[in-house]
């Protein structure tokens, strides 16, 4: 079972944190901090695995992938295959990329709700729900359509300053 999904930027700021077991807010923050503490000390070109026993308890595993300014982190137990989870991170990122066209950190920051919707179509209650990014996109678009039909929703450009000064 996947225990947690986190997206943390290279400064340690959480961009997405989803825990599939209930944890208090403080605990969540602490875990994010400790994960980041270890992550940022790891060199490039080392494995994508990190000892997580000391942070999440025995038999937990942690796989992460570093893209530009973001770390994508999945924490899970022994029931999952490490490399398969690593592939899942790749699927998640590829889907984001399709959704935002050349995704960057700002897309993720400002489209926080979208990120959640996408993740919910990939991981469901700690289990892998869908692995095909085409299928994921289909589901997400369906939801967007439903939302759009009931609200007028504006486009959020990548730079906020443009419309803030209007």
């Amino acid at each position, binding site marked *: 079972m996947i225990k947690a999904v986190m997206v943390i930027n290279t400064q340690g700021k959480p961009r997405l944190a989803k825990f599939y077991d209930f944890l208090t807010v403080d605990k969540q923050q602490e875990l994010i901090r400790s994960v980041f503490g270890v992550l940022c000390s790891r060199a490039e070109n080392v494995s994508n695995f990190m000892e997580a026993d000391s942070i999440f308890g025995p038999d937990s595993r942690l796989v992460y992938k570093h893209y530009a300014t973001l770390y994508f982190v999945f924490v899970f137990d022994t029931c999952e*295959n490490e490399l398969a989870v690593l592939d899942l991170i790749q699927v998640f990122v590829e889907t984001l990329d399709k959704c935002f066209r050349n995704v960057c950190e700002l897309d993720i920051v400002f*489209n926080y709700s979208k990120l959640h919707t996408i993740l919910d179509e990939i991981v469901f*209650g700690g289990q892998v729900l869908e692995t095909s990014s085409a299928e994921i996109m289909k589901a997400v678009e369906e939801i967007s359509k439903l939302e759009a039909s009931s609200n007028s929703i504006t486009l959020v450009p990548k730079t906020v300053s443009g419309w803030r000064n209007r």
Partner: protein
Amino acid sequence: MALSGMRGLSVFISDIRNCPNKDQERLRVDKELGNIRTRFKNEKGLTPYEKKKYVWKMLYIYMLGYDVDFGHMEAVSLISAPKYPEKQVGYIVTSSLLNENHDFLRLAINTVRNDIIGRNETFQCLALTMVGNIGGREFAESLAADVQKLLISSSCRPLVRKKAALCLLRLYRKNPDVVNIDGWVDRMAQLLDERDIGVLTSSMSLLVALVSNNHEAYWSCLPKCVKVLERLARNQDIPQEYTYYGIPSPWLQVKAMRALQYFPTIEDPNCRRSLFEVLQRILMGTDVVKNVNKNNAAHAVLFEALALVMHLDAEKEMMSQCVALLGKFIAVREPNIRYLGLENMTRMLMVTDVQDSIKRHQAQIITSLKDPDISIRRRALDLLYGMCDISNAKDIVEELLQYLSTADFAMREELSLKAAILAEKFAPDLSWYVDVILQLIDKAGDFVSDDIWFRVVQFVTNNEDLQPYAAAKAREYLDKPAIHETMVKVSAYLLGEFSHLLARRPGCSPKEIFIIIHEKLPTVSTSTIPILLSTYAKILMHTQPPDPELQNQIWAIFNKYESCIDAEIQQRAVEYFALSRKGAAVMDILAEMPKFPERQSALIKKAEVAEVDSADQSAIKLRAQQQTSNALVVTDQHSANGPPPTVPAVGPLTLVKVPSTSGNAEHTSEGQALTQPNGTLTKIDPQTPSEDLLGDLLGPLAIEGPPGAAVQPQQNAVSEVGGVPSAVDGAAIVPVGEYSNSVQPIGNINERFYALCLKDSGVLYEDPYIQIGIKAEWRAQHGHLVLFLGNKNTSPLDSVQALVLPPAHLKMELSLVPETIPPRAQVQCPLEVLNLRPSRDVAVLDFSYKFGECEASPSSSSEQISSAYISVCRRVLSSMEISFRPPLKLQEVVRGVRPLPLAEMANLFNSFRLMICPGLDPNPNNLVASTTFYSESTRAMLCLIRIETDPADRTQLRMTVASGDPMLTFELKEFMKEQLVSIPTAPHGPTAPPTPPVAQVAQPTSPVKALTDPGAMLAAEWSFEDFGLVTRKKSVNGSFLVLVMDGQSLASFRPNNKAEPNK
């Protein structure tokens, strides 16, 4: 695709991003939360869009780490809204903010059920997602049947069905009874025929959960799993969108193989054949390729196939193929594959008959110990540890030893423990074992626990053949220039016991042995000295015929330590001295130690326990403990005005000696009531000889006389001798009771205390289990001290109690000390101090803890209570600034001062924050210092001190102290006298107790009389009695400017900078 977003949310996020610091962020968040609260309260004008916007803001705030505890009710009620947008909002919040035990959830069950059985697929998806994320037992009971129906329904879209499958999995985990096995097995098998890969993947996850609980019921699903594998891996019968970098859904393949691993064997030969065909294809057909993602996916499948082969215990042919593959993997460039290769090899060790093929890769595994990635290094260490046996122990242990000197600090302790265990378990001969352990101590002494050297001593004691060898080795190590203290301990012990076996060898005569061991004495801590004393006693005993010169030397040492502050050392010194004087009559007592009873190695036992316990001792748990203790400390800080936390009675052990609190400072306070005979205290200590290793080693050496009468007189004698130093040192630190046999403070408490008088932070006390540090900050008469209690061990310290006994002039508030200090954790306990009036009395910290050890004799695992008392004191004067006013001035000639160069004395004064004012006194042999003293009664009080030294005789000086308060003057003078006489750097317990200062009668002298004295004249001239305050200002260029504060400047001078303080 169009980006849909919410402008309000984006504005809020960018506001948060623009916050320069955490405080600003909190302000912004609070403002937003207030806004959301009001908007939700007047629900009227809130459109669904706005609601959604606020909800996402709340979720964003929640992610930032703020509690969002309102709106639960609103959220839950939104679930029942008829329209999609509102319902969506309700479900999103509910599943993100609530947990399964939340009461509000119960209210929603019916609505959720209606959504699930309703015809609206989007509603079904929303409801399933929420239940799948937070559904609990109650949901399981009322919804499982409906969810099952959705899953097998032919009319539902795959999108809904895959969610239903995982939702059912969640409900099954919460309550396994909700899946009726008889009815469900066939359905499950049918589900595995599903064509839609999304639904199939989810169903496979469900199957894994079901078979992991009860594989027998689901036999019929086994061939289906094989079929799925065949379909994917052999036929590649899969829609394009489900291939990932050309590999047919690696996740589904992995899941299917996972499910197969829960069945013990495969009986049907056809099925087995087809499976092995597929596995063979996977094993052979996977190559390391350039594309990282493709590589990962292919190897995900491959490693799962390896695991399945291992599980099915295939023909040996396939197994060795697997080992060969793994051997290839651990040498590839791709770090992930190396990592998993090592991990799987470790797993493979459990399969019989492959050890030999794994051993072929030993060299490569050893290379992995030097991998740049610590994750890989750890795997390599695990693997080496696991694959070690009698045939390769020598090589592996030697590699580990070599690696030890370059390994990361994070790994060293584990590494040395593992090396020690392997050496013990697989030693081809015992002398090799001794070599390894001694090397281990030599290379990584800091990381070698006591257990390790205790064990080597046991081995040597129990094996006579080994004794000369071990003694000779120990002798060799002593020749090295700098050796670790543990090495001093073990070699001293071994040589004490067995050096007589070497007597004929060159350089090994008793005298030479004694000299080389004694050389190490100044470098070791208090905990080692008792072992050295025992060694001396043994050497003396073994020297036949007696060598009078050696005897005198050793007796001199015993004499010296008879007055040692450390009770253990003191007792040994006295007893050995008495015993060795008696000569041959009592020789038997000092004869060689008897053999130790055979017992399981505490080390191996510890390793076993650690393996079993690793589940319990999880860091998360430890962290949790740590958290609670921090919380305790924090909460107590707030109750600073309350009474000091109640400290439960600790029985007779808490007997504490309070330093004489002389409220009346005119009376000589020293030497009074401080000499409680040690004898009485010893009796109170209920310590029984412990059964653990330490007890075995140290106990008998300490010659335990019959309790009571026989020992009593000796101890009284000790206290008579020790009376004087304790009177002198007593004010500083009071040895309260004997330290129990096993807890030896590290370092000299007294010295530590003196050192702390000179600085604001440092270590107050240390023993093998705990370290207490202190940090102080003073603002006028208010002090803020923090005690740092650090557990040095890997197991928690229990029943921790700390009580501060303040002297009358100090008001102290110690916040509650947590009862348990988690392993290797440090707890901070703030201590607030208010100085009421001048006094030299010190506060005492009474500290005790319990260290539960389960080790040693298999028959009884005894829990050992060790209590250590430290009397801690904060000499308030030391951290106060002092200055003066002369109505009351005291003068005294102090003799017996430790000679100090003037510059050093100036430094000492400065470190007491008595600022030297150079240039005030024309005589270069004199020092003048000033400071401001703060207390409740005196407020800011200026003090002046003048020291006139005699260049001909540095052991005496005349000290003049003046301030506006008679008590302050007296106390300051006494304090300085103490400091100058028993200079802090002086080692404790030199041959004779420091001569008490021969004080001239210190009488307040009248101002008139004082004027005849040049110092007084100076002082009087400098700040006239009638004037109030003298302050000292540090000007920009660092020189001093002294002003009299009646408005007009009387004196200002800029001395030359040669004695610039603190620069």
